[in-house]
């Protein structure tokens, strides 16, 4: 079995060392030859994106020090599907993305809370159930030491994740959706799962672009609220991951990293991944 190959274009030596360590653990072979179509993935610093134009395969962008707003603009303007913040969780985040890109199961919270465990699973079929579950998740967040306003941001994101999934299930007459919470020290994660599998990366990224434009141009009265919904998710989470098995299921994962002030949290570069399995078994 051939090893997956990664092209690395990283400016800082210290970051490059950390990336190399992750490649070893993920069993990736490093291949930095330009124009080599055998690279399965390119890992590039956001400041060197212009050097990655000839890369083939998925591109994982390492983003450092830009702040959240600039990172979101980068995701939107370059249609990036994988972003990893260069912080103390870089290794875990990169390992998660590389594992998924190398063909591991896309679904599950365990890759986002590697050192923790499942807290609870709920089902929700309507707004009343969603409201009850959000209250329980809010109480869990407080018990984990999450500041109230950051917990409120997290709940806003989960609200968007859940209402989108519930609406899809109602339209397709599929019954309740599933909401799962997991935690580890310093991290709280929630996944919302539907059995539709119709979310597309271009729709998510397009919503981010159009949602960003509403800041200046306003929201048309006949516009879809989904654009705003994705903007809220991107803007309020530490990590947003979207897993799609086309035509079968969708899992949207929202993660908050605890231990930051609200201002620090709001200015932190978010992690992002949009993974699609085109050929369900």
């Amino acid at each position: 079995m051939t090893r997956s190959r990664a092209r690395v274009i990283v400016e800082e030596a210290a970051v490059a060392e950390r990336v190399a360590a992750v490649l070893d653990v993920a069993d990736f072979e490093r291949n930095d030859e330009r124009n080599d179509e055998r690279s399965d993935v390119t890992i590039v610093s956001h400041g060197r994106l212009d050097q990655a134009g000839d890369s083939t395969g998925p591109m994982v962008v390492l983003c450092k020090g830009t702040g959240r707003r600039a990172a979101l603009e980068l995701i939107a303007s370059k249609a990036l599907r994988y972003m990893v913040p260069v912080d103390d969780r870089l290794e875990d985040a990169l390992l998660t993305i590389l594992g998924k890109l190398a063909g591991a199961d896309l679904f599950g919270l365990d890759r986002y809370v590697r050192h923790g465990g499942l807290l609870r699973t709920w089902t929700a079929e309507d707004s009343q159930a969603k409201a009850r579950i959000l209250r329980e998740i809010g109480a869990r967040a407080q018990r984990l030491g999450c500041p109230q306003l950051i917990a409120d941001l997290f709940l806003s994101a989960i609200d968007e994740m859940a209402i989108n999934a519930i609406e899809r299930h109602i339209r397709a007459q599929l019954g309740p959706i599933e909401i799962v919470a997991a935690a580890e020290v310093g991290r709280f994660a929630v996944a919302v799962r539907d059995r539709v599998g119709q979310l597309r990366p271009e729709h998510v990224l397009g919503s981010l672009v159009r949602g960003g434009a509403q800041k200046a141009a306003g929201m048309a009265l006949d516009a879809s609220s989904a654009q705003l919904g994705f903007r809220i998710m991107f803007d309020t989470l530490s990590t947003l991951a979207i897993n799609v098995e086309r035509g079968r299921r969708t899992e949207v994962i929202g993660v908050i990293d605890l231990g930051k002030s609200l201002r620090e949290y709001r200015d932190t570069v978010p992690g992002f991944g949009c993974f699609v399995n085109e050929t369900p078994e």
Partner: protein
Amino acid sequence: MLERLIEKRPDGRTTVMLSGFIDETADLEALLGDVEGEIALDLSAVQRINSIGAHRWIITLARLTAHRRVTVEAVPYSVGMQANYVANFFARAEVLSCLAPYACATCETSTNLLIHRDEVSLRAPTRWCKRCKNELVFDELDGYLDFLVRNRS
């Protein structure tokens, strides 16, 4: 669930205090459609707003503010966040004040404090901790108060 409390002011204006969640279950037309004359909307008890609620809010505010004066007071953090995403969030309404997040580095506490739009220049107004009397830190990004000042006349 979203509820309202109506109070008639001596100056003839009507205060409508909204409390709860502005989401897909909120019937804003039923809550605001029958209020006549100038309106002061107090949002201090709104706990959360989602994208469907925001869309309904924008439609309702566009109609509500088309031919009369509407003021908005005590915009909570959750609503302020969304107001910054959408330029026409408050339509023609005048936003007078908001609840802004401050933190005390000494006491390690967080609090929401009412600030008026006239207090805001390039940065958030200074506030002091009630307990230790030290200056509080504005606990958001500098652009957070954009929604409060963008329609300031």
